[in-house]
């Protein structure tokens, strides 16, 4: 009896290992394919029907960063280094602006009490329910009238201006910091401003790092907003729309391998940052819970 129970458990565990193994393979395989084929020597979309590349080379990465057009490309060429720089600059600026506004809004809603607080929070909730690109389209016209369409400034504005609406997570964190700290500081003569900068912010490192990382990653992964604002002029593209351009019907046959290489180049740092962010997120949420 005992033996058969053990046997059954072993059997079911083996089965689970098998299923999990296969699933992991399914989930990892496309990425493995991506990496392997970005290193494939011969160009083109497919490698004569072979799933595994026969010869490996770093040439596509070198071409990508040198901005070399692949052989057979027509007059219109794509310039990845510029896109990479664009995205980096946009990400840095919007990261600073959105982090500041998210922290300011969430601190105000969490620690300060004023008449229209509830009403403002409700408005923020309702604004969040509209489909995102209803506003994007109008934003495009607005930027066009301001003569900003197709520029990087427009992207920075778009990414960072709505950021204040995403205050929930950091507000949740600030909510868990005991109010006794504020009161003690107030008795000692600190103003609200000093409490924010000298007491609350130093205690909120995980959530600050989380906010910084999310707003930095945003421009790298956003696709649709950049596409709407940038239109057809490829010089100011970000990596996301640039990579999509590489596999559009016009460029696919020549730029396919650079697309693979570019995807790897973007995905690796973003993946690492994301894993870091996840860690800080968990830390922030659990640390907040303990304090409250």
């Amino acid at each position, binding site marked *: 009896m005992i033996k058969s129970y053990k046997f059954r458990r072993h059997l079911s565990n083996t089965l689970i290992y098998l299923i999990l193994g296969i699933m992991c393979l399914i989930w990892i395989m496309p990425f493995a394919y991506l990496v392997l084929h970005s290193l494939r020597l011969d160009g083109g979309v497919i490698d004569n029907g072979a799933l595994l590349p026969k010869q490996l080379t770093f040439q596509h990465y070198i071409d990508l960063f040198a901005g070399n057009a692949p052989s057979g490309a027509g007059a219109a060429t794509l310039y990845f280094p510029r896109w990479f720089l664009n995205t980096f600059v946009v990400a840095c600026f919007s990261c600073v602006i959105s982090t500041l506004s998210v922290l300011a809004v969430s601190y105000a809603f969490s620690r300060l009490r004023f008449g229209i607080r509830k009403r403002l929070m409700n408005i923020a909730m309702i604004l969040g329910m509209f489909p995102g690109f209803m*506003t994007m389209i109008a934003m495009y016209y607005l930027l066009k009238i301001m003569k900003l369409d197709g520029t990087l400034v427009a992207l920075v504005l778009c990414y960072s201006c709505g950021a204040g609406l995403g205050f929930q997570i950091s507000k949740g964190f600030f909510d868990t910091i005991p109010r006794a700290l504020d009161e003690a500081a107030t008795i000692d003569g600190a103003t609200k401003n000093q409490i924010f900068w000298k007491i609350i912010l130093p205690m909120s490192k995980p959530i600050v790092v989380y906010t910084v990382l999310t707003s930095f990653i945003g421009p790298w992964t956003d696709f649709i907003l950049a596409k709407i604002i940038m239109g057809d002029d490829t010089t100011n593209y970000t990596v996301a729309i640039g990579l999509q351009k590489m596999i559009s019907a016009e460029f696919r046959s020549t730029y396919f391998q650079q697309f693979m290489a570019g995807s790897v180049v973007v995905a690796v740092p973003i993946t690492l940052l994301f894993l870091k962010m996840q860690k800080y997120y968990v830390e922030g949420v659990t640390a907040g819970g303990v304090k409250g």
Partner: protein
Amino acid sequence: MTYVEYKQLNFFQRFAFNFKKFFKNLPGALGRFFKAIGLAIVHFFVGIGKGFKFYGSTFVKGDWATKLSYVIFGFGCFHKKKYYKGILYFLVECLYVLFLVFFGAEQLYWLPTLGTIEQHTEIVDGFPVTVQGQKSMQILLYATLTIVVTLVVFVIYISNIKDAYKHQLMKENGEKPTSLRQDARDFLDGKYHVTLLSFPILMISIFNILPLIFMILIAFTNYNGTTHINLFDWVGLQNFGNLLNVIDSAKKAQTFFGIAGWTLIWAIAATFSNYILGMIVALMINKKGIKLKGLFRTMFVITIAVPQFVSLLLMSQLLAEDGAFNMVLAFFNGGVNPHVNFLGGDALTARLTVIIVNCWVGIPYTILSMSGILMNIPEDLYESARIDGASPFKTFTKITLPYMIFVTTPQLITTFVGNINNFNVIFLLTGGAPANPDYFNAGYTDILVTWLYNLSMGSGLQDYGLASAIGILVFIICATLSLIIYNNSKSMKDEEAFS
């Protein structure tokens, strides 16, 4: 039904009970919802009434300087020696008047007709000169801007009156007005929220609220990319009529209902397939006796971490006619590449492919959140069940499953609403393909939001008015869904919380 009776039901009876309860509560929830809206409207008008009362009574009670500040901003402040504030108020008035004279008034004048002058040639001094026509879009946008600015100035106007009256009272009590330095210090302490919030609110007003108002207004015009490019008119509810009226406006309404149906199927299929499959995998990973838990979890988390557009574009390439999947199929097909067009060929194939790929994208998210919940189920529940002789299957259906469903219901709803708006998966995979000739600028896999995109930014026939109307309908659907279910799930929690 009492709590004990409820506990005796099996899983399916409970589900049926909760299902029935949900729909029985639905009218009540809807009623509460509309009552809340009604109350909000009443509060709004009461507030306006109070405002008028304040406006009148302050005028009666105010001295001559306060009365004068009803016309000249900041006069009351200036008279009570609060110079900097008075000057600021006065500046606002001057700027606003200039703004109106040189810019705003014209826009407001053209707002009812949205412009009438087309591009034409005039004879000036015997030479023909092309005169630019008006652009309705510009007029509408500028008029919206004027209205928003006017509202802001109105708020400043009211606060100017309040300030004038406050300083009058202070003078009567023999108090001195505060100095600039004291006020500045107050903005870092008592009024710190103003300092913190003013910049984000300004940005949100310009880049979220203004465009939103503009797009809502567009829904009531006939702005489209074919016949009304420069000049368009107000058409009232015609766009909504076109979407909902099956008889008269056959093609648009047919497209709307067809796409709305597919959106619903898509949202349900995508949500539940992710939920159920993700739960199964999470259970497998977290099963006792399974080693390498961390490794498996990391494998799945990595696929979340890769930017979604990379994984989706990659998938679209793998599924292309000359992509890797067809090569794998060729391997089983005796070396002949079948060239299956997963994403653009047959409607059913494309739809199934989209749902399956969405599983590939979405399941890791479910695993991540479920793993956390599974680890939080108290171990002693299982312990006592085992001592009572419950089989593993019984413990699963009686403990794990109810617990999971209870904890994750709110999340399920958010996912559902998210899937209605899931633009990325559809757009990056199929872009709506295969095209449907019976639809108005849409394909078989288009959902409402991608159709909205096609109509406003995509290629083909563009109809901005229709697109905005769709956006408003999507908003109404999502907002009602979230509000009703939010109310309901809260009441559910109170009634039968797992403890």
